[in-house]
């Protein structure tokens, strides 16, 4: 069952890539059909998943390269299920929002599906080395997706992304190898390694490279500089996947490996991590205020919002770990929506410069639906009640405040600043009088808004009924913290 979540997009990528030249529409339709089928498989999996059981379900364990201790071991629990679902949903949305006239469609859609397969594999892997392989695998398609279909400085941004994330991978691998070496384990299997008792000093020694690697991926200040460049140069669908899925690999690794494998060491470092989260949140928010490019505002907003996950992970309470998982889902949905909408604005106006845009809410000549959705997205990101952002941030702060009050307050200021920088953008871009130069914009077809409406529906649904997501991860939060 779990293998199909990896194999279907993987085979789909191969099918699209190696079949004879097709029309762009046909290629897109095949990619869409594959993405829809993966999403359906995910839904089936979600219904069959039992949230009351601790540990991994639907496990698949096959020996692979035994002499290096690598097994093809997959499993799913309350931590990975929401992220696997998010991955398949955002892949579908990325394909649906891709231009029909995109150049080299076969390579493009193959890379998208390969990326999806890599991310799914990383979320499902129960073998550290297998996780690393998938963690590295998704870098390749993403590099090409930025380098080939990106903006003017795509080469620079793609190379920077590659160097940073490859270095991140090396550090993660070093930590995993060190763990196996120090524990004397015979394989990289996750569960046996969790139960090994390592001295706190040894844990700290292994945690350091792991955390730096993860912080690059999330990214956390000061390891973040690749992200704004990558977002600005990436096309809209790639930004959606970058923010919605790729960054989650970092936070997933943080919970699964840093907290899951080195809990005692993590607790020692947690106060410093919480302070770093507060600084990162404020830094991201402050940078967002200073930006003139709408996409950079959303990118820096991501840095701020991802820091909340670090804060929640640092608190290591049942509530905060549950909140961290929920914040991942919440950020994935909201940032994907915001990037989609910025993409529509850019597509129609040819610019993302806040100073060049004004009055786009004009009901007849502007982009009123885009503007309306943007306002809703901004409300969700700012944590307004009734939307998923409110629940996730409330849970994060509620779960973290008793343990780390000062860093939590710093993050609370950061969330207040979210409203500031986004309202500055909304006010400049959407309100006021439409300028003459913007008065002949092409109209946005309803179909172009379907992905945004789908995300908005989920943002509101999970905002009103958060237990549909929370109940998946509550039990797993306890398992992570108790080693059970």
């Amino acid at each position, binding site marked *: 069952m779990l293998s199909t979540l990896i194999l279907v997009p993987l085979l789909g990528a191969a099918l699209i890539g190696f079949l004879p030249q097709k029309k762009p529409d046909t290629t897109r339709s095949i990619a869409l059909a594959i993405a829809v089928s993966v999403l359906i498989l995910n839904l089936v999996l979600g219904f069959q998943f039992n949230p009351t059981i601790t540990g991994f379900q639907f496990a698949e364990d096959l020996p692979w390269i035994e002499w290096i201790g690598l097994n093809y071991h997959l499993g799913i629990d309350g931590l990975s299920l929401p992220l696997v679902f998010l991955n398949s949903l955002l892949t579908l949305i990325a394909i649906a929002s891709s231009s029909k006239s995109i150049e080299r469609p076969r390579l493009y859609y193959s890379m998208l599906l390969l990326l999806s397969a890599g991310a799914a594999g990383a979320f499902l892997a129960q073998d550290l080395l297998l996780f690393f392989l998938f963690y590295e695998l998704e870098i390749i398609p993403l590099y090409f997706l930025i380098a080939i279909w990106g903006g003017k400085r795509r080469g620079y941004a793609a190379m920077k992304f590659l160097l940073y994330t490859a270095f991140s991978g090396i550090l993660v691998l070093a930590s995993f190898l060190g763990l196996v070496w120090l524990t004397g384990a015979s394989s990289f299997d996750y569960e046996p390694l969790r139960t090994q008792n390592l001295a706190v000093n040894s844990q700290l020694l292994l945690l350091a490279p792991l955390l730096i690697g993860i912080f690059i991926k999330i990214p956390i200040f000061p390891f973040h500089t690749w992200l704004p460049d990558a977002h600005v140069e990436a096309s809209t669908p790639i930004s959606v996947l970058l923010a919605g899925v790729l960054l989650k690999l970092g936070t997933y690794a943080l919970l699964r490996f840093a907290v899951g494998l080195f809990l005692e060491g993590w607790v020692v470092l947690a106060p410093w991590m919480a302070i770093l989260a507060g600084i990162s949140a404020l830094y991201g928010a402050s940078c967002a205020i200073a930006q003139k490019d709408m996409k950079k505002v959303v990118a820096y907003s991501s840095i701020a919002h991802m820091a909340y996950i670090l804060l929640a992970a640092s608190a290591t309470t049942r509530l905060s770990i549950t909140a961290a998982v929920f914040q991942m889902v919440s950020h994935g949905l909201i940032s994907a929506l915001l990037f989609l909408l910025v993409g529509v604005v850019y597509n129609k106006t040819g610019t993302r410069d806040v100073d060049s845009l004004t009055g786009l809410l*004009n*009901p*007849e*000549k502007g982009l009123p639906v885009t503007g309306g959705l943007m306002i809703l997205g901004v409300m969700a990101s700012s944590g307004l009640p009734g939307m998923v952002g409110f629940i996730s941030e409330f849970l994060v702060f509620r779960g973290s405040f008793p343990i780390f009050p000062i860093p939590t307050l710093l993050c609370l200021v950061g969330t207040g600043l979210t409203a500031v920088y986004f309202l500055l953008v909304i006010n400049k871009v959407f309100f006021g009088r*439409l300028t003459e130069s913007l*008065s002949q914009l092409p109209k946005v077809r309803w179909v172009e808004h379907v992905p945004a409406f789908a995300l908005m529906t989920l943002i509101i649904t999970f905002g009103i009924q958060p237990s549909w997501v929370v109940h998946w991860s509550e039990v797993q939060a306890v398992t992570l913290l108790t080693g059970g």
Partner: protein
Amino acid sequence: MVSTKTIKSSKSLLIDEYIQKLEQGEALLQDSPQNLLEVVGILKSYGVVLDAYSVNLCYIANTQFLVLFPFFKYFNGEINPKKLARYIWQDRINFEYAEYCMKSMFWHGGGGLDAYVDSPEFLAVIKQVIKAKFKYNPFMLGLDKLFPDFLPEHMRQMAFYSGLGQFWRVMSDIFISLSDRYDNGEIKSIPDVVQHILDGLVADAARPITYTVKVKDQTYDIIPKSAGITFLMDTGVPYVEAIFFRGTPFPGTISYNAQAYQIPYDQGMFNYGALYADPLPIGSSGIPPTLLMQDMRHYLPDYLHEYYLHTTRGEDDLKIKICQTFQKSMFCVTTAAVKGLAPHPLDTQDAKEKQANRAYLTNWLKRLLESQLVKVNS
């Protein structure tokens, strides 16, 4: 300094250019087949809408006077569940726009009608009407004693309802007949449109504007024929001044802070009228001109609707396109008014008459150059 001089000279050059055009029998709006199609088409739909506005304004003036809570004033006396449902569903003519125009006229004043409603004769009749209407209502009579200006002011407003209703009755007929003549191939250019409107205005220039109400079988001539209020000078000219030129600022089309004197203190310096309106914000809810555009879109002739469908965003920015065309048509009506009110025929060869005409036209054009005139001709 150099730039200011340049601006001044280019302005006066533009004024000279327009004066020359008017003297040669042309209109303020450039003559082109596209402009002709747009103007005639939009005036047809405007004519239909004006007819409805006119009927409703006269209905309100004749039957809703001294009714302090006229809940069903837009129903023209026909109240049934079907009409009520349509009203609640907003599937109706936006009579609020007609009231907006009436209030604008009432506020800016000017002309014989405005002067007459402040006359002792008017007040004397009003007092009789109030007494008759509230003969068995001591509460209202007491209220009238306590606030003696309140009900007369209400009746002054009713006089403007009636005055504007009668004015639009004539204008509606002029625009519908223009469309019929265009369909018959008699109207072939923008100057033909202007001439048709001018002929209509001149034909009815002296038409009396009267207002009579009935209270319990007794009729009261609130504006009798003997008051000498006429169609053109007492309602037409104040209407053009109030609606085409001055208007009123309202949030949505402009942003202002009245306390910071961002709107002129003097009403005469207002330039928020139809000729100055910015078409881009049209379409936003709550903005009065949007109501007119909403109404007109239902009555567009097929050829104009077809034309709109193939330009810019098709149906999506229809109201803005209607507004832009409407402004074009209003420049034709303004041309007719300017020609009709000129001291001498504009094609006169007499030097003195020509000089008087030029002074007259310069005053008009100084105001018009600030409007959307240059834009619609660009």
